[in-house]
């Protein structure tokens, strides 16, 4: 059993309306309107003066980590992009040194693009299951900088905002227990030529992987209280929900206008929102779902019980 013991997030103060980003993103007025009116983007958070380390520290420092550092055996950074800083910088290792975690095994997972956050939870759970210490913890981090055109936008689909999340994972515990995880890599969509096929396959593939995860958990869709999405855009979720036969109001999209798509951190940011809004109730199951586009094309879903 894999358990989310604690989740913290961090969003930079700087709020940038997407209209202000249009010149740098190469968006015309009508494309901006599509993002605003249909995809439900309004603004993203940006901290041009801040570093990736600043982002990750912001999330870690919102965790109650003090006194538990020695139990943290593994630190995983889930990333949408393989290259985020120039060599030999390593913000993950620097964070471990700065926050009393130099003993932890620290590494990055990027294999499934924006679905790498769920993969990191699965990897963390596997490592903890094999660890002889029942009190061992894994720290899963997510968050990236919008520092190149590729990391600022998924063309015609989504706009990235900066932010970060930190999630402590345990092998056992009373809340937020993982019941199932299904991940379907789709390598045929891994390059630019596959983008059109990915878009066409997207709603049905995401719906199918959610249904598969729910079935693997021994549940049916009416049992699911909410879906915590990755913030690709509102239209993609409307189409996915149509295929699932679910009302899109069950998908927690409230953050999308305020944060944009925060790489692999969406899941955790939407989890915090759902907790604070009272959308998660003890003992009730929920789904987290994400798709990775371009290199690492993947559809993934995880079912947990709160």
């Amino acid at each position: 059993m894999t358990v989310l013991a604690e989740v913290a997030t961090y969003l930079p103060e700087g709020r940038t309306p997407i209209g202000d980003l249009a010149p740098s993103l190469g968006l015309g007025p009508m494309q901006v309107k599509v993002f605003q009116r249909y995809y439900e983007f309004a603004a993203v958070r940006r901290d041009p003066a801040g570093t990736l380390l600043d982002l990750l520290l912001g999330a870690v420092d919102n965790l109650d980590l003090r006194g538990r550092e020695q139990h943290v055996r593994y630190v995983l950074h889930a990333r949408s992009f393989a290259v985020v800083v120039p060599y030999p910088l390593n913000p993950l290792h620097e964070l471990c040194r700065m926050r009393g975690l130099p003993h932890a095994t620290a590494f990055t997972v990027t294999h499934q693009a924006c679905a790498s956050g769920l993969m990191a939870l699965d990897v963390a759970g596997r490592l903890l299951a094999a660890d002889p210490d029942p009190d061992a913890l894994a720290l899963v981090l997510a968050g990236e900088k919008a520092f190149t055109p590729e990391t600022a936008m998924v063309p015609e689909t989504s706009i990235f905002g900066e932010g970060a999340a930190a999630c402590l994972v345990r092998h056992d515990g009373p809340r937020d227990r993982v019941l199932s995880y299904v991940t379907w890599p789709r390598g045929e969509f891994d390059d630019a030529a596959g983008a059109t096929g990915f878009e066409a396959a997207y709603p049905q593939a995401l719906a199918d992987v959610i249904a598969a995860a729910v079935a693997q958990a021994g549940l049916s869709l009416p049992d699911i209280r909410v879906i915590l999405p990755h913030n690709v855009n509102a239209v993609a979720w409307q189409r996915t929900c149509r295929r699932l036969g679910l009302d899109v109001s069950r998908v927690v999209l409230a953050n999308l206008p305020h944060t944009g798509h925060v790489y692999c951190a969406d899941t955790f940011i939407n989890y915090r929102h759902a907790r604070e809004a009272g959308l998660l109730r003890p003992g009730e199951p929920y789904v987290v779902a994400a798709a990775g586009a371009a290199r690492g094309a993947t559809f993934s879903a995880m079912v947990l019980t709160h």
Partner: protein
Amino acid sequence: MPLIVRDQLVDSICALLPQVLRREMPALSPDTALMDDLAMSSTTGLELMLELEESLGIEISVEDLDRDDFATVSSLAGYVAANIIGAE
């Protein structure tokens, strides 16, 4: 709201396609396949909805709009005709 017939929408869609797709178009017909023949994406499809609204002075609900509706000019016109907000 005046009744806008499907044929009028077909004409409007064909007229707007070069502007939305930012290139010259071959001869267009109701049977032209928007995605297969013209490589229209979901986003450019939604841009076309916005342009239609502006040019015809209407508001279109896209809540039920899906990829299949972009199969041809005619199928898209059919969707729009059935989803004009406030139409009698």
